[in-house]
């Protein structure tokens, strides 16, 4: 296994300048996170991970924060894509990015105590504080929504409990007539302390938790997490396990994309399209259950490989895919022929390439706005270097574009599954897992149905988890939604939102 992670320690100013210059020379920002390593090294560390353009390599500059001065030169003014990361690090570790234009709390809501940083190793919280946090009656650190003033501007607050069967989040629209002038989402209602929880689990138990971070990306999360731990311990997984993971990643993408396209019909009121999409998705989920024992492909991944030989169901997969492909073609024909549907999608929720780049948008949303980025190509892993495919991009940037990118990728997934099933890969399902050495760290990543997904793990002196950082694609894409809906009418918001189909649970951690 080639190591493609290049760590480099830099001091305060240098760190900032280096990050800015990487960004200027076209490197892609992937994630930023902090660790509390006071016990061993007497410092906090802040890492930023960049992908080198056109090369399978990660540049990872990091900064040490020692002593009492827990602030650093913020990067946000120069690299807008880190604006959430810096706020999150501020919430979780109490490290202050100087010069950040908006340091309101991101993760924690008003009733969470100030000066309380859960990811610090010595963090404690009293029962009473926890109770008050849940009751939500005392506003300890009030959050101020941005206000739009002017004639005819009014606010529409929506959520966290919505009308449909969806996840919770609060949206505050400032509208002029029917038109959305400004939208401020307030998320993190589903914050479950997942990263802290990982630290209490062992590395191998962590797989179950990773699979439960975001329901419809269960397999991607499991894979990225396992990959991180495997890379950290220097475990090479067998060919067969790679093939099975690749196959299931594509099955996951397929059921998600088909389901998402169907769900967009709910946004335009095309009931027949919605039902048709749901039906194909259901068939694919039943296939998931038959081959893996779980409709969400859970329980297959383990550190070192997989537990089940999915290839023994090759016939079932092929026949199901055959009918699904037929249904899917008819379904797309139906949608593209429904003028009332297509008209609503065209030009709605436009996200420009420039904003997508600046905010570090990922996945379908990025590719639909002309950003050619796909982890499967940028950092080939598993068997992706042997499969033929091209990332699908278009420059339209609207809801229609996001639907079409999904449609093309779904077809591409089907052909990849066929290609995978054609070959033989030996019999071994899992490698023996080597012990995790102390103070080791590594990245794990994959392209989930929603976009790039990262895990970073580090072990402590005993080889147990010191830090597990997870970065879901939704975390990158949420900040882009307000830009996409600006100028649209309020009734089109659900449609725009569905076209991004972001996970709240994955984002809120």
């Amino acid at each position: 296994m080639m190591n493609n992670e290049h760590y480099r320690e830099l001091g305060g100013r240098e760190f900032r300048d280096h990050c800015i210059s990487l960004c200027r020379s076209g490197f892609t920002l992937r994630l930023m996170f902090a660790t509390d390593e006071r016990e061993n090294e007497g410092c906090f560390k802040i890492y930023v991970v960049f992908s080198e353009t056109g090369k399978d390599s990660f540049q990872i500059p990091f900064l040490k924060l020692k002593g009492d001065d827990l602030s650093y030169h913020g990067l946000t003014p120069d690299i807008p894509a880190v604006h959430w990361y810096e706020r999150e690090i501020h919430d979780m570790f109490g490290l202050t990015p100087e010069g950040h234009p908006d340091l309101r709390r991101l993760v924690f809501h008003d009733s969470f105590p100030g000066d309380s940083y859960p990811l610090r190793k010595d963090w404690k919280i009293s029962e009473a504080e926890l109770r008050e946090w849940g009751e939500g009656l005392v506003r300890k650190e009030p959050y101020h929504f941005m206000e739009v003033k002017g004639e005819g501007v009014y606010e529409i607050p929506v959520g966290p409990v919505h009308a449909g069967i969806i996840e919770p989040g609060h949206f505050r629209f400032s509208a002029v007539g029917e038109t959305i002038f400004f939208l401020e989402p307030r998320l993190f209602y589903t914050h479950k302390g997942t990263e802290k929880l990982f630290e209490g689990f062992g590395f191998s138990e962590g797989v179950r938790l990773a699979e439960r971070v975001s329901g419809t990306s269960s397999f991607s999360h499991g894979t990225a997490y396992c990959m991180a731990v495997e890379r950290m311990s220097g475990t090479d997984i067998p060919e067969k396990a790679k093939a099975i993971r690749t196959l299931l990643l594509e099955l996951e993408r397929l059921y998600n994309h088909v389901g998402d396209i169907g769900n967009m019909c709910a946004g335009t009121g095309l009931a027949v399209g919605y039902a048709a999409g749901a039906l194909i998705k259901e068939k694919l989920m039943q296939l998931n259950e038959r081959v893996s024992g779980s409709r969400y492909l859970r329980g297959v991944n383990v550190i070192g490989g997989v537990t089940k030989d999915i290839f023994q169901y090759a016939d079932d997969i092929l026949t199901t895919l055959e009918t699904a492909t037929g249904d899917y073609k008819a379904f797309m024909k139906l949608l593209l022929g429904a003028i009332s549907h297509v008209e609503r999608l065209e030009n709605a929720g436009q996200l420009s390439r420039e904003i997508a780049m600046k905010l570090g948008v990922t996945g379908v949303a990025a590719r639909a706005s002309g950003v050619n980025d796909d982890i499967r190509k940028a950092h080939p892993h598993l068997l992706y270097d042997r499969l033929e495919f091209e990332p699908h991009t278009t420059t339209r940037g609207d809801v229609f574009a996001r639907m079409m990118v999904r449609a093309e990728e779904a077809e591409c997934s089907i052909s990849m599954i066929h290609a995978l099933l054609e070959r033989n890969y030996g019999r071994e399902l899992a490698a023996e897992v080597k012990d995790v050495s102390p103070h080791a760290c590594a990245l794990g990543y994959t392209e989930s149905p929603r976009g790039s997904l990262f895990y970073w793990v580090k072990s402590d002196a005993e080889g147990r988890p010191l830090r597990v950082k997870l970065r879901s694609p939704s975390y990158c894409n949420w900040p882009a939604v307000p830009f996409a809906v600006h100028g649209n009418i309020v009734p089109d918001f659900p449609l725009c939102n569905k076209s991004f189909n972001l996970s709240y649970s994955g984002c809120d951690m």
Partner: protein
Amino acid sequence: MIKEILKNITGKKQAIRFPGGSAVSPEDAAKIPALQEGMGKVFRRSLRIRQVDGGSCNACEWECTALTNPVYDVERFGIGFVASPRHADALLVTGPVSRQMELALRKTYLATPEPRLVIALGDCAVDGGIYKGSYAVTDGVANVIPVDCFIPGCPPSPAEIIAGVLRLLEELARRK
């Protein structure tokens, strides 16, 4: 077409077929017509549910959504999902109830007219599931509002959810 519809109206045959390999046993599925009877007695053929996400991973919600797809189509039993707690007979709560959702869940509960039922759906909702013990969750719906019925599973499949609702109906019929 008209013929088909007429046949469906007059025919006694139940249009219930669960996917092979589903975790619910055939006996459970055979009990489904009883669900319809129970529905008739207890809820006058209509049970309106408001789904509330208490910080789930979202798989539990997707299984609820699947209940409305053409395969399970729970509308045919009179079960439907409504947009507001004020229209609901029952709350179907998923997730371990994150602390940041606790207040919203309480408010939703208070907005639901009495008599109201609460169903806790999924391992997380039962006792916190995998998230049990985390600082940011309350370890289950019952720690926030009173619960009438637990449906475990991670996530429970659509067929299991239907079977769970059936159990609740039986229980209610007995209580009556």
